[in-house]
Every structure is written in C-alpha cells, then in structure tokens.
C-alpha cells in the first residue's frame, strides 16, 4: 500500500511537470495569432505613418474583409474535419453573378435569397459528390471551381455586369456590423454548443474513431459542405454590394484568403483539436490588415502575392510542428 502511495506521488509530480509544459503549449497556441496581428499592425502602421489605423482606413478594412469573414466562419466547419473547400471563391463569384442578374431582372430584394440558395445548392452538390460518389474532397471542389468559373463567365458575357443603382444604398455599416455579430454568434452556437461542431471536430481527428462513437460520417460531411456553400453565396452577395455588381474576377482570391485566415487565426490546417470559430475572426483581421497594409505601403501586386505565399508557408510549417507534438501516433 505504501509503495502504491509513493508511486502515486511520483505520478503526481510528473503530472505537475507535464502540467506546466502543457500550459505553455496552450498559451503559445492561443497567443501566437494575437502576436502576429499585433506585429502586422505595428509594422504597417509605422511604415504608412499612422494611415493604417486612421478611422477612414479602419472602415475600409472592415468593408474589404467582410465577405472574407462570412466565408471563413463557415469554412471552420469544413476545415475542422481536416478537409478544405476549394470551391468557395468560385461559388461566391457564381452566386454574385446570379444575384446581380436576379436583381436586375426581377427585383433587388430577390438577390439575397438567390445568392444564398445558389450557394447552398452548389455546396450540396459538393457534398453529394464527396459522400455519395465518394470523390476525394480536393478533386470534387476543384472540379466545382473550374465548372463555376466557366459558368460565371458565360453568365456575365463580358468582363462585368452592374447591379441596379438603387442597391448602392444597401451598404450601411451599422447593419453590416449587427449582421456580423449575429452571424458570428450563430456560428459559435453551432460549433460549440450543438452536436454539429463537436462531431465535425472529431472527424478531423480520426474518421474511424468518430464512426465508432456513432457519428454519421457522410451526413456530417454533407452538412459541412452545404454550410460553406451557403456562406459562400452570402459572401457573394456582399461582394456584389461592395463592388457594385459581378465580374469574372469576383471571389477569385477568396478561397486562398479563407484558408490563410483560418490558419493565421490559430487553427491547424488538418482540423481536429485546435478547431475553433474564433480563428475565423482573428484570421480575417490578420489577412485583411495584411492585404490593406501592403496596398497602403505601395507594394505591387506581385510583391503582395509573394509576401502572402511566404507568410503562409511559414505559418503552416510552424502550426504543423505544434500539432505533431500533441498527436502521439
């Protein structure tokens, strides 16, 4: 018995050691994204001589990053399963074109349900291809992307179409802020307080283990892709409001920006344990500040791409290493 006690003591002291290490790991995982954002803000604010944080520019960042935020928050659901949705940008572009045409042809208000429904439907097609036809997610989404790019081009016939002028009035910051708050709360609720988020997260760790815990693997994947589709449609609607219509280039950078945002926000690209909706918010801020700061600082398009690509590489390398530490296979 005494022996057992000393053994338990040993265990305890070892656990305490582990404890401090664990805390450090947890904290570093949570702090690094904030630190990254802070460094970016300070850096760009300095080289733009305070322009970055001017009231006017902050509103600009908010508006530029709005669609990205909507898309990212939903993408958390797909990415928590360890998958990516490469068609988000193309869905947003296509939904944007559909919404613009509907607004012109029928009535401006129709553009809202059209954008969301088109996105939702396309997401469901993705989900169908992945769960029923059993295509690899990557291939299914990539094909969807190519098809939609062609679709958008034939819808637009030219390089861009304009939405009705009256819709310019729709872009009101206050409404957009309220909507963003409600949307974020809804995503938080779904991810943290219902079965959906918990089950998707477990799929990102191990599909077989999740199945053995009674999770309907296909249904959950289908649901996740439907959600990102619908959110991409919504993002497409706001891209229309922002740019005054649809162009063949609408949504082009959305997909990569979403993936970057989520990883910059502190979530692992392989999903699982580190998945959280807050990563979308934080990551959107990082990517938006980066995009905006580089334009303000006068970087050319090529440089911007280069910087983003390089930073993405670094952050993936760093975040993957941290993951390997936690998953002992």
């Amino acid at each position, binding site marked *: 018995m005494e022996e*057992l006690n000393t053994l338990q003591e040993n265990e305890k002291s070892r656990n305490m050691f582990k404890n401090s290490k664990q805390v450090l790991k947890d904290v570093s995982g949570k702090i690094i994204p904030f630190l990254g954002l802070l460094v970016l803000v300070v850096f760009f604010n300095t080289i733009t001589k305070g322009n970055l944080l001017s009231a006017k520019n902050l509103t600009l960042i908010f508006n530029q990053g709005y669609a990205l935020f909507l898309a990212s928050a939903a993408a958390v659901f797909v990415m928590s399963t360890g998958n990516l949705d490469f068609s988000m940008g193309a869905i947003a572009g296509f939904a944007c074109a559909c919404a613009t045409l509907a607004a012109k042809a029928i009535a401006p208000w129709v553009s809202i349900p059209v954008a969301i429904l088109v996105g939702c439907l396309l997401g469901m097609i993705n989900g169908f291809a992945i769960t029923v036809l059993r295509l690899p997610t990557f291939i299914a989404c990539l094909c969807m992307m190519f098809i939609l790019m062609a679709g958008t081009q034939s819808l637009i016939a030219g390089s861009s179409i304009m939405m009705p002028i009256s819709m310019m009035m729709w872009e009101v910051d206050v409404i957009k802020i309220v909507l963003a708050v409600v949307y974020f709360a809804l995503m938080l609720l779904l991810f943290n307080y219902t079965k959906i988020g918990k089950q998707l997260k477990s799929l990102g*760790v191990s599909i077989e283990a*999740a199945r053995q815990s009674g999770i309907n693997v296909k249904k959950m994947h289908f649901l996740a892709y439907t959600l990102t589709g619908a959110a991409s449609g919504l993002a497409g609607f706001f891209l229309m409001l922002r740019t005054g219509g649809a162009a063949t280039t609408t949504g082009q950078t959305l997909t990569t920006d979403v993936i970057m945002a989520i990883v910059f926000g502190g979530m692992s690209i392989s999903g699982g*344990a580190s998945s959280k909706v807050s990563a979308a918010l934080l990551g959107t801020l990082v990517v938006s500040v980066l995009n905006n700061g580089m334009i303000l600082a006068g970087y050319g398009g090529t440089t911007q791409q280069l910087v983003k690509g390089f930073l993405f590489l670094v952050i993936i390398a760093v975040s993957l290493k941290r993951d390997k530490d*936690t998953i002992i296979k």
Partner: protein
Amino acid sequence: MDQIEVIQVENISKAFGPTKALTKVSLDVCKGEIRGLIGENGSGKSTLASIIAGNLQADDGEMFLFGEAFSPANSLEASKSGISMIVQEQGTINTISVAANIFAGREDDYVSWGIINSKKINHDAQELLNNLDLGYIKAEMIVSTLSFEDRKLVEIARAFYKLPELFIVDETTTALPQKGRNILYKLIDQLKQSNKSVLFISHDIEELIQVCDNVTILRDGQVITTLQGNEMEPHRMKSLMVGREIIDNFYRMNEDSKPKSEEAILSVNKVNQGILKDVCFDLKEGEILGIAGLSDCGMHELGKIIFGLIKPDSGSVRVRNGKKITNSQVAIQEKLGFMSKNRDKEAILLSLSIKENIVLPCLDLLKKIGFFITPRSEKKLAKTWCDKLSVKMRSVDQACSELSGGNKQKIVFCKWLGNESEILILDCPTRGIDVGVKEAIYRIMEELKAQGKSIIMISEELPEILGMSDRIITFKNGEVTHTFTRSSQLQEAEVIQYMI
C-alpha cells in the same frame, strides 16, 4: 553443450509508469541452449525478451553479449549483433512481396547503380525459403495474399536470413497451427545443431517441456527459478508460476454462471461475412460471453459486425425489441457500446480531451431544448464517470494522448457507461495494459455484470476468457466450433483444441 554464455542479463529492472514489469531479473543463456521462459500474463516475459531484442530499454541493470557489455538502442542494432525475435503480433508489411519483406532494411546489399536488383532479391529469398522447407511460399507473392500462418513463417524466414546467435520466439506458436509449429521446431533444432541459442516464450507448458533444455519461470517480474532438464514437470511448473494471493482473485472468483435472465438481449443470426460462416448465437441479459479464437479467425470482424461497423453479406444482428443493427448510430441508440482492439486509432480520439471523448456518443442525452449542449453538462457527465472508474488525470480537459493505456481504456468504458449502454462489446479489453490495471478492468466488468449489463468479450488471451466468462464460444476459421459453460475444471488445453 559448452558453457559459453551468449547472453548474460544482470539485474535488469523495468517499470511502465507505476507498474514494475521487471525487478532485478538475471538470466544467462549458453551457446547451443534452448531456454524456455514461462510465466503468467504480465509476469514480464515479453518485456524481458523485448529488452534483449532492443525493442525496449531497461531502466536499470546490465547485459553482456559474449562477455561484452551490450545495450542495443533498437531492434536493428540487436539484430546486427545476432539477436532476432519474432513476436505474437503480426510483423510483416502486407502490401509488398515476400522477398521485399525478408530483405526489408537490408536492400543495400542488392543495389547496383542506385537500382535495386529485384531479380536477385527474389532469387535469394526463394533460396532461403527452400532451405527452410517453406518452398511453397513464393518470393514474388504479395504478403497480403498469404494466410496469417504463412505470414508468420515469412517473418521466421526473415529472422533466419543470417543465422542468429540468439533467436527469441515470443509466443509465436499460439498463432500457428501444428504444421507451422513443426516447421518452427525443426528450425529451432537446426539452430541447436549449429550451436546457436534460443529463448522460447510460450504459455504452453507441454510445448516448453518438449522443445526446451531448461525453463526459467517468471512471476511478477521476478525470476522464481530455472528448472534444468528433467526437473521440468508440468505440475511443478504450474505451482511455481502461480502461487500468489493476487492470482486467486485476479479474475472472477465465483463460479456462478447464471445470467440475470435466460432471455436473449442480443442475437446474431446466420451472419456471413468474409471468413465468417453462418455465425449464430445469443447474448443473455447480465452475462459475460467470452469469444475465443486465433486472431485471424474472424472474431474481431464479428465484433464490428455486431456494432454495425461492418455490413454482413447476409444474416443480421438484432436486439431484444427485434430491431436490426445496421450502423453504429442504431447500435448506440439501442444502447450498445464497442471497445475496439485498436484503442489509440479507433476507440479514442487521442488529441481531444477526456471530456470530448466521453461526451461524443452521449451528445443526444445532453441535448436541451432539442439541440443545445451546455459545457457544464458535458463536464458533469465526464467527471461523474471518471470519478466512478477512478481515472488518473489532472482534469477532464486533459488530452487523452497523455494518459496511460489503462486509463485510456477506462475512458472508453466511461464513454459507453455515460451513454447508459446495456450491452458492451469488448474487443481485447486488456490488450497492452499493465497487470495492475488489468485487474481494475476485470473488476469493472464484474461490477457491470452485477448491475445486469451484458458483455461480449473477444480476446486472444485464454486465461482471461476462462477467468471471466459465463459462457465461452470458440471460433476456428470463421465458424463457431464449441460452447463451454463456466467451470473451474475447464482447462486451457481443452479450449485450445477447438481453436486450432
């Protein structure tokens, strides 16, 4: 037999967490000697073998190989020094050829101009197989097309590529039918003729007496004694192996085998799938049903079929109310729980927390107003069960990857008990678990039986099958061969003959 020691093990100790697997074990094996090693489950046989073969490192103590200090950092180093081991578990790479398996890690000898000469590899491999009387296995065959037994023999061939100085056989014979065993015995004899040594680990006392020169008996991680030649006699060996208090109540004490009621709570009807042929049996309420067989007899697949993870080609699994189990969601609704043999990959989500793991199958029970799940209710559920099964942890938010094997297994129990499961399918519940925790698992099973829950225990370890089950069903090549009822008279040998 000359008296040159091949290997000298001096005062080796090894602990896994709080459990001492070996305490100051010393053992010498001489040239040309065939040494047996026997002991109860968890007595440290395999640990000792693994340390000699370089798969594990000792915490304390020394080893000498031909008189020189020897501390292999890994199995490759040990095998270079002439020590090779074959184990109970499968150790072949199934998607590549027999030859590639035999020469895995030794391809360097066959490389010319950066390209592997596969013709020569195949030729040499075939020659080796022929020499070992295994000529019917062709070197070009892909391992996955071979039977489990032949795969084992490929492993043995691999070990004989260079005649080992010390050949360690870790309970391999339980996986082999008589033909395979005979081949192995012949090889062992060959080694003896060439003045090489063998360390032979087995559960089977008769086999040890037949094969070995001397037998060392381990109990609780300590060497009890070594019996020379004619001192080896079954009764004496048994009493030396056992003979401690814990043994008496390690498994279930009572002989009562009556279930709570004779009513079938789950029935398997004519299930056919893969190797399984027309499998039929009932599980009664409050009974522990043991399923015994060799690891490739289909019993592990059967566990998955019962839980709806594998769809049978024909036949069905139904619960008491007649509902058919078609997938794991239905199984969980009908209060079934499944503990996979492959714990770390299938039963537990390692990188998630204890709480997240336990709550996962129970989410429907926690829902408020139809969908809302509060963190507080999750925590409460997880904590309740962790406390009941005394899981050693910091908090329920700790990641499962940090837990020991036994504690992980307890989490799996928590998961299903949290969902109020009535039927538990346990596939190798004590696999890779320390002795002390094994007992805890058995106590949990006993407790569950007392509460009227029903358990199907699939296991490759006969002692626990005999010790825990009310009824035992034996499997051989996918078919039910016999049903035993609990009895203290029942011997392992009696059950084994229905398995091989």
